């Protein structure tokens, strides 16, 4: 029936010219029942190949037996037991706490920037302003993190400045080679994630919302806390997840800015691999995946993460 309608429409559009009643084999092959139908499966195949399979392999290998140089098939929870009974679990928790702080600080610094750009910058220029935040990503992360050392160091820019203006007598050593140093490094490295996600999330807040708030006499802080943040929550959460996961996994920051033996989850995995303890590395990776999935589940239950795409729709 639908084909008849299509034919009629095409015939009338063709101004009476002859239109083939049925499409050519080539068209049929490309058509809705041909390649187009299978095109929908491409993302699924991609997901299976590059997401499900590697994840499944990671989980399976985590219960394998460790050999001297590799591992062999088996079923043991030794790697998990080792993770939870050694100090690695403690290191992992510290790493989560530091990453959580990085998320909180990035939100406090980055989200107001996103709100400001949405509210105050002319619409035509908004994307250009936001693109400015991509600039730091053009520099290698290693360089960016390493560049923090001359700023935060004992004789660094900050300490010199504070001492010159008489704010302190002795250099502050807690801002480098310390947990605080790691948090600062994470914020500097990953802040743009919050700005981007916040900017997208602000699409959900229509301009009239600000006007209504102004008309009702709501103060800036209350508007921000009670209106903007709840409306933009899914986007804020997404930005937070990006920062949290990077804080947990990017080993550079604790290596360069952390204190004696500072680690994050990524570094713990790396150290297990260096020691040829592959099942342990896989077990920690599995725990990282589980952590991420749990966070996404909680986030979805709380904020309905599908709303992130609503402004695009």
């Amino acid at each position: 029936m639908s084909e008849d309608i299509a034919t009629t429409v095409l015939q009338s559009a063709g101004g009476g010219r002859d239109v083939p009643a049925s499409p050519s084999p080539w068209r049929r092959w490309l058509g809705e029942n041909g390649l187009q139908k299978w095109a929908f499966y491409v993302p699924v195949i991609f997901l299976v190949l590059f997401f499900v399979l590697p994840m499944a392999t990671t989980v399976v290998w985590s219960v394998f037996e460790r050999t001297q140089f590799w591992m062999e098939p088996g079923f043991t929870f030794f790697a998990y037991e080792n993770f939870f009974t050694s100090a690695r679990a403690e290191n992992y928790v510290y790493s989560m706490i530091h990453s959580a702080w990085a998320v909180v600080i990035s939100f406090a610094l980055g989200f107001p920037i996103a709100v400001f750009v949405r509210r105050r910058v002319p619409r035509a220029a908004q994307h250009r302003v936001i693109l400015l935040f991509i600039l730091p990503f053009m520099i290698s992360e290693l360089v960016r993190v390493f560049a923090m050392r001359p700023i935060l160091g004992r004789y660094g820019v900050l300490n010199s400045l504070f001492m010159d203006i008489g704010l302190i007598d002795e250099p502050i050593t807690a801002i480098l080679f310390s947990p605080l140093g790691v948090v600062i490094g994470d914020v500097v490295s990953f802040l743009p994630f919050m700005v981007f996600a916040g900017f997208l999330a602000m699409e959900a807040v229509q301009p009239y919302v600000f006007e209504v708030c102004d008309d009702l006499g709501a103060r800036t802080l209350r508007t921000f806390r009670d209106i903007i943040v709840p409306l933009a929550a899914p986007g804020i959460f997404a930005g937070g997840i990006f920062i949290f996961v990077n804080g947990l996994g990017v080993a550079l920051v604790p290596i360069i800015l952390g204190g004696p033996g500072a680690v994050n989850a990524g570094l713990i995995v790396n150290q297990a691999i260096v020691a040829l303890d592959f099942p342990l590395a896989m077990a920690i990776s599995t725990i990282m995946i589980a952590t991420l999935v749990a966070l996404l589940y909680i986030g979805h239950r709380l904020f309905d993460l599908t709303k992130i795409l609503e402004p695009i729709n």
Partner: protein
Amino acid sequence: MKQWEFNRRYVLQGVAAIAAAAAAGGIPGLSRAAGDLKLWAAGIHKVGAKDWSAMSSQAGIGIAYTTKSARADEAIQKMVVGDGNKLFDAMTDNGGGMENALGSQKAIVPLDTTKIPNWKNILPSYNDGGLAAHSIRYDGKVYATPMISNADSMAYDYKKLGFHPTSWEVLFDSQFKGRAALQNDFGPTLTNMAIYLKESGKIEIGNPSDMTPNEVKAVCQYLIDYKKKGQFRTFWDGFQNGVGILTSGEVLVSSCWEPIQIVANRKTGDKADIRYGSMKEGHQAWNNIVMLTKGGHERGMDAAYYALANVYLSPWFGARTLAGLGFGAQMVGVDDYIKSHPKDFPAAKQAEVLDILTRKNERLANKGNAWQNVFPKHLRAYQDWWARLQAA
């Protein structure tokens, strides 16, 4: 002729012409590639030029070089479970573990040392029964040629300290609280600390290179205690990091590799005087070795390997690795070579290099030294206690 046909035809013709010229020997880089020794090595294993040209011309062979890190896991994965034997004819790594690991997995082959003329000059410690003999042997056979060695110690800023430390004790001195650093690697750090604690009589330890779980625990608990007191500023990881903490003045004493001290001292100029000490308790000694892979042997690359090994045991290489990065030469007579080549080593450089050599020999002769062990028997205990130290 259609445009796309024209393009395709001419590209194919061009490629065929290049291939023919290469086969005929008309293009040196390409034609030589087939016979080149495919070497998987770290950048520190060459001297004389920024690339491998000087090494290549000394050995009289072509070298196709691939960069390698010092990570044991990478080498094991590539050579034991990966395609390393297809890719490389020769490879470098740490002695005192890797030759055993790769030899036991048949990834490398035993050597015929009679094909290396300079083998007669090798340091006596590599001869049967010598302190370093095990580091090039597996199952009683020689599987590797040593290239560089050292006894790791501690760098310090003499300008700030005002004295030359002769004991690891200074790392735990309260006057350097928050200004001391250790290497973020349980292998060298725990071995050096075990040597200190054993030789100073603080902890009873059998073999600092291969500690029992209880010994590992005792050493780590000692470090945890000082870490909690805030003694250490950081544990450095990577060459630039090691240099950075010394040049910035963040730390005044740091256990580290000698090249770190050399580079840090060059960078700081007159601002600091960063030196490398000799610790009375002893040091972790180590070497790097070059091995012939099974694949290389099967492809008939033995002669090229032996030519390169001969260069590594020549005073030409020994003098330059010593002068450049301060690594120990693996042959006797390197001091005579330096003295007899004033063009390459002018008087001031000679004095500096010979001083490094004297101090290095002094360190290497220390009876408290323990050899690097890439795979200690109780590796799990090392890993687990290191994690505890990190968490403390």
